[in-house]
């Protein structure tokens, strides 16, 4: 009796293992079926749950694997543990096929003929197979990440090399024109660092100062994002180039009042929409510069004809014609305040601050595939910038031009005030109400009844005075109208 119990217990353990493993495939009838037929569970599997189960090995194709089926059919309960063995055992058991499985062959044959279904699918969970191939998605992912990291390092280094190549080419010219070349704002004293200031992996800044006429010049080397693989792929669809942006801030007394821009038509159309000053002062569409001998690719936006006449002197035309392919836009403006700010309605109460600025945007040749040597070709453009600074200082509008310019600026200011009139009124109104409320609160908070009464009387008197003033004003207006 005891022995029987022990035997049952021993059978029970592997049986429960197999149950746990093949939980998904169990129906209610499983227990009965299991008694009758060792391969009942595989029956269910092949019919119903082909899609659900983890990766299965269809083992009827190779001779080798047929042997595995027969082996595993026998050892279904110990599959997990014998997996490795059976795989290895394959090659070993092949020569012994006939001999070793003589006794066994009947059973699987019998069961096979019973099942009619020749395909027995073995459910080996994928992660228990000792093959890296099943993890191919993960390997793909990791490879992708490695590729990204490689691209990051390569791109970063390329941008770095380009920036330093640019700086080495231009250093001499800059140092001869500016007292302070390179400043990152951290030192207490204004000493030249003589180095580019790296803001990003693709943006480098250089601040130069210490020259007559201008407050300072900020050069931004805006390279393409070579360190970001996504960007590199996007650029394969849509080519773009590195840009050098130079912003010269002029002293107030060194530049007259005008707004003028020249550049590629596309760039000017975009700037006219985006820039606050160009949209307000240059209302016409960009005009062709053919009249002055400029190539067709360039167009001009100007506040008035006189400015264009004054700006387009021989040397400037020479610069613009020779380097037209590298020029994206050139903007001279005394009302420069940057792009239009998208402000909420309630906030627009003051005109944005303006500074007299010369803004140059140049495209680096090569449209993405630049090499450090290309930086040398930008040197003449820097000379153009220096020339423009001196020119802007020298150029003065005549009397007519000045009048027109002043009128324009007054008009713009008036428009702005009209637009914000309502908002300013509301703001003033709310301020008055706040004051009243504060007064009332003070009166309420006063504990001393005497003081309270006095304060109330004072407030009343003030209000009466205000009303009288208003009435006086109305009377005056009426008299004037009459």
């Amino acid at each position, binding site marked *: 009796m005891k022995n029987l119990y022990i035997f049952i217990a021993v059978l029970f353990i592997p049986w429960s293992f197999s149950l746990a493993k093949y939980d998904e495939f169990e129906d209610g009838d499983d227990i009965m079926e299991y008694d009758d037929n060792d391969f009942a569970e595989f029956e269910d599997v092949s019919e119903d749950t082909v899609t659900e189960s983890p990766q299965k090995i269809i083992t009827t194709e190779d001779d080798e694997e047929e042997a595995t089926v027969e082996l595993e059919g026998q050892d279904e309960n110990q599959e997990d543990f014998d997996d490795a063995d059976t795989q290895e055992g394959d090659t070993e058991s092949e020569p012994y096929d006939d001999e070793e499985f003589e006794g066994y062959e009947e059973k699987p044959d019998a069961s096979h003929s019973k099942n009619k279904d020749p395909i027995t699918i073995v459910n080996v969970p994928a992660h228990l197979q000792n093959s890296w191939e099943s993890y191919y998605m993960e390997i793909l992912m990791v490879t992708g990440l490695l590729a990204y990291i490689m691209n990051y390092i390569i791109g970063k280094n390329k941008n770095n090399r380009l920036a330093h190549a640019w700086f080495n080419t231009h250093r001499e010219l800059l140092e001869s024109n500016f007292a302070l070349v390179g400043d990152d704002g951290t030192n207490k004293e204004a000493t030249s660092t003589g180095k580019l200031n790296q803001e990003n992996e693709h943006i480098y800044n250089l601040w130069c100062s210490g020259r007559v006429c201008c407050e300072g010049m900020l050069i931004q080397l805006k390279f393409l*994002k070579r360190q970001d693989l996504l960007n590199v792929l996007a650029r394969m669809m849509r080519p773009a180039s590195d840009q050098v942006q130079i912003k010269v801030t002029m002293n107030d007394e060194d530049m007259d009042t005008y707004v003028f821009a020249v550049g590629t038509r596309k760039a000017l159309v975009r700037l006219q929409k985006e820039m606050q000053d160009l949209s307000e002062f240059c209302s016409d569409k960009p005009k062709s510069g053919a009249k002055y001998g400029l190539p067709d690719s360039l167009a001009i936006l100007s506040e008035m004809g006189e400015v264009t006449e004054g700006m387009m002197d021989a040397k400037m035309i020479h610069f613009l014609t020779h380097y037209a392919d590298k020029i994206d836009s050139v903007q001279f403006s005394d009302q420069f305040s940057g792009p239009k700010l998208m402000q909420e309605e309630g906030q627009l109460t003051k005109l944005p601050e303006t500074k007299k600025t010369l803004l140059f945007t140049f495209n680096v040749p090569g449209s993405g595939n630049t090499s450090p040597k290309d930086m040398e070709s930008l040197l003449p453009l820097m000379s153009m910038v220096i020339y423009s600074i001196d020119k802007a200082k020298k150029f003065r509008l005549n009397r007519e031009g000045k009048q027109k310019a002043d009128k324009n600026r007054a008009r713009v200011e008036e428009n702005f005030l009209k637009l914000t009139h309502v908002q300013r009124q509301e703001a003033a109104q709310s301020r008055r109400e706040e004051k009243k409320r504060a007064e009332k609160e003070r009166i309420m908070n006063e504990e001393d009844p005497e003081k309270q009464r006095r304060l109330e009387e004072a407030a009343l008197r003030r209000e009466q005075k205000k009303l009288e003033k208003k009435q006086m004003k109305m009377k005056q207006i009426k008299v004037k109208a009459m």
Partner: protein
Amino acid sequence: LREPPFPPGRYKPPATETNPALEDPTPDYMNLLGMVFSMCGLMLKLKWCAWIAVYCSFISFANSRSSEDTKQMMSSFMLSISAVVMSYLQNPQPMSPPW
């Protein structure tokens, strides 16, 4: 051209710092996206979410400005790595392709 006693003006950071609308929003978006995907990967036990989160945090790092906090980058990166690791610990099976 250049007068030595002329006092040079100091460096002022470009307008992007005063006008947030001009700044490139990519690193911030990618950071946020990375965190969202890591949370999805952790909660819903989706492996591909976790992997995308790792990619997002890498992209965010590549596009970041030098003035940006490294702690933020590191935290998003760690979160995405932990999402991947947790997904595999809970379910060691390889990822199945969507097709």
